């Protein structure tokens, strides 16, 4: 009885150690942040990400069409010429899931990302730059959608 309990405990520790070493627990503090993706507004997303209050800025650009013909595939991008960007976020205000994507930048890449998103309806699109010094800058652009992209 004692024997098997001891070996079980030891094996448990070994398994835990193995799990840690496989990198299932990410080194950077940001694992998939489900709260941020469930937030329903720009302010809530930023709160979930631990960022401060946003300020509109001419130095951040939202790239996107004025009218998106197909709401299921809308090319959207976020960029800024400013140095010291920690994160670039793309948000679609009227989506059931407001936060589309969060990009964690490093010195190895330009602060310029593009992807394609689904938009349920015409809405404002926000590009947000969270800076290393804690400042949060954003820009917004209205994108009209003629055919919604959520399968509705």
């Amino acid at each position, binding site marked *: 009885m004692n024997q098997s309990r001891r070996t079980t405990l030891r094996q448990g520790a070994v398994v835990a150690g193995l799990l840690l070493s496989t990198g299932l627990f990410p080194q950077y503090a940001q694992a998939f942040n489900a709260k941020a993706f469930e937030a329903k507004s720009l302010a809530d997303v930023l709160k979930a990400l631990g960022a401060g209050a946003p300020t509109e800025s001419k130095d951040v650009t939202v790239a996107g069409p004025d009218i998106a013909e197909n709401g299921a595939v809308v090319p959207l991008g976020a960029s800024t010429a400013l140095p010291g960007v920690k994160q670039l976020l793309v948000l679609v205000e009227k989506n059931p*899931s407001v936060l589309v994507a969060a990009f964690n930048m490093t010195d190895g890449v330009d602060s310029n990302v593009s992807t394609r998103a689904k938009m349920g309806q015409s809405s404002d699109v926000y590009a947000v730059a969270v800076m290393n010094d804690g400042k949060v800058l954003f820009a917004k652009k209205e994108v009209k959608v003629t055919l919604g992209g959520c399968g509705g």
Partner: protein
Amino acid sequence: MADPMRIRAQAAGGNATVRVLMAHEMETGQRKDASGKTIPAWHITEVTATHNGKSVLTAEWGPAVAKNPFLQFTIKGAKAGDKVAITWKDNKGDSRTDEATVS
């Protein structure tokens, strides 16, 4: 597993523009199928890009990213011959890595 990603990495003026097209359904979890049941969310949650083995970009994606997601970004200081690898993980635990060389 999913189909391979298409990765194009082109060097231009000391940087490389990388374009990736991933094959993934990206279900939002909002759609209902013919019998009225909600199709569960199935989408990529994390993307990592490495340049010669060093992580240069990570991203967290929600269900709003379009099906067969596209991603474009620019790696600084890349030249022809460098290796770019893209890895994605989805909310079901699947993952996929594909590699390309900067041309």
